[in-house]
């Protein structure tokens, strides 16, 4: 009976999918599964993973944030420009992350204060933030950052990349917040039934301001990590990453209508997408194939999810 309820959980299904992917990879090309290879390739997914964490919270609360990729780009550009203007690299980094926070708070203010639907607000800021980044940098790439800064993106301790350590810390923080804190329970409460949550005394507006603020802040952090990894701050970094992020969260089992889902699911969703992408790229050297395979896995997974959900009811 316990086994049955375990099998009903979406996370279990995803873990099985991941196991199949990794098993197939190990069978076809053992070199891909070497620990050192996996650790080095993991840096390709760090931005996706850490941005997907607050996105999980936002979607759990019944909202959406389409502007994370643009906030990330704006943070990267502000970081690059302020470093170029002579700011110390740490100060420029802080400024970059704060830029992300500001982007998120502006979203939150419109959503919580002016009560505009998050889809509309963030669709607008998706264009606005990216446009702002293009405008103030004139589309010019900025590079030439000091090595000690690039170490955030490329350095490692005992073979484990620093950026992966940051990601793991972020995963733990978000996972614990979602299950062990009042904040986390409130996120679920808002997503399940906002009116009920309000009558239960949940400060809806303040919570939303926090949620979008955190999403922007983490996007800013991801922007800085990305610059450190590729040594370039540019307005068009990671185009359409917001879609990858939302895809990973939804694949992770979080209901797009809010209220149901988990951080663990999101992590598994990111891992499935990451491993499939990397392995298809590794093995078959055809970029166009990656989209096809990731797309098929998505469709099959969503179909499977619906089946599992119907059974569970």
């Amino acid at each position: 009976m316990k086994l049955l309820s375990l099998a009903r959980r979406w996370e279990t299904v995803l873990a099985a999918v991941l196991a199949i992917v990794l098993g197939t990879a190990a069978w076809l090309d053992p070199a891909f599964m070497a620990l050192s290879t996996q650790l080095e390739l993991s840096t390709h997914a760090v931005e996706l993973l850490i941005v997907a964490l607050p996105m999980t919270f936002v979607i759990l609360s019944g909202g959406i944030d389409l502007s994370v990729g643009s906030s990330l780009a704006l943070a990267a550009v502000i970081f690059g420009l302020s470093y170029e203007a002579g700011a110390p690299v740490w100060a420029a980094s802080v400024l970059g992350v704060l830029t992300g926070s500001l982007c998120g708070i502006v979203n939150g203010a419109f959503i919580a204060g002016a009560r505009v639907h998050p889809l509309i607000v963030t669709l607008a800021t998706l264009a606005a933030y990216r446009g702002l980044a293009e405008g103030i940098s004139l589309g010019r790439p900025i590079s030439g950052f000091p090595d000690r800064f690039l170490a955030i993106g490329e350095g490692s301790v005992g073979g484990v990349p620093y950026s992966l350590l940051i990601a793991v810390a972020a995963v733990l923080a978000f996972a614990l917040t979602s299950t062990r804190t009042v904040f986390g329970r409130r996120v679920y409460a808002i997503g399940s039934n906002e009116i009920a949550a309000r009558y239960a005394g949940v400060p809806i507006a303040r919570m939303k301001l926090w949620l979008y603020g955190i999403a922007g802040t983490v996007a800013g952090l991801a922007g800085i990590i990305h610059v450190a990894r590729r040594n370039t701050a540019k307005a068009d970094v990671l185009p359409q990453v917001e879609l990858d992020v939302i895809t990973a969260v939804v694949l992770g089992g979080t209901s797009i209508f809010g209220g149901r889902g988990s951080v663990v699911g999101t992590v598994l969703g990111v891992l499935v997408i990451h491993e499939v992408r990397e392995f298809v790229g590794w093995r078959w050297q055809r970029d166009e194939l990656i989209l096809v395979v990731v797309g098929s896995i998505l469709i099959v997974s969503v179909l499977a999810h619906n089946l599992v959900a119907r059974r569970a009811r």
Partner: protein
Amino acid sequence: MKILTQVLITAIMATVMAFTATAVATGAVEPSPSKRITICLLPKKKGLPYFTTCSKGAQQAADELGDVELIYDGPTDGSPEKAASMVDRWALRGVDVIAVSPNDPEVLGQAMKKAREKGIRVITWDADAAPATREFMVNQATAREIGHALVDAMAKDLGSDQPEGKVAIITATLTAANQNEWIKYMKERLEKYPKLTLIATKPSNEDQRLAFQIAQDLMKAHPDLKGIFGISSVAFPGAAEAVKQAGNSGKVLVTGLATPNDMKAYVKDGTVKSVVLWNTVDLGYLTVHAAHALATGTLKPGQTSFTAGRLGERKIEGDQILLGQILVFTKDNIDQFDF
């Protein structure tokens, strides 16, 4: 019953995965047991006719050499991040040579540096990155040759020794290293034709619709515009289409860089008189020969020439391996080329 469903779902997914795997495995590049040389050729953007023709030449060279495993892959959306991830993966796989046409010299340069630290031989082709990131660059033509050829073609098309009028440039992006070098030498050459005035240099961001629109705007703002240079394979057809649709064929001349197949229709209807390019098939061919020679040790720093199959002796200037033959396609010869 429910457990059965779960098992079923897992089985279905496994089958789909396995199916996908076998379906694509037919075209898989098998790692070779003997001393084959694996050469990876990375274009700026996969699927552009320009790069597809380069890959044809590359495959010819690989077939001729016999011991080459050629991998041709690049981002289908031209994203530098994806291109850099590919270089990362190839480096981890331990291929012999990676030949990169960087769509962003900094982003790719960083990945190329890491690959070199792993002992992979790295060269650039078609476009360059910082010298420390690669050993050689396979250069289709010097920026000087290209810049001068473009301006000379325009002058000739305008039809007199001292052509007069306003001309404009539509480039790729304002940061594109290749294009900026060409523009520098175009300006140098324009001094030879003092009555030609360059009124604007506009980016098209590798977007044909944008190039089309910019050409329209230029013609509106300057009714006496005589010529437009479209100096990327995307800007050129975009500008030509705008001139044609405005009914200005022959009045506003368009010249630039693109593959002959892209421009044939415009050359035939008189919108374009000259198309400037190098032989892209030969560029891919030369790149694979250079990569092979580097891996086998026949190409070393300091050499001033090397032999590249059917192309014979090719000149090397410093760390630049030169293809060195600019082609000008006109209505008289364009039908002889199919790429």
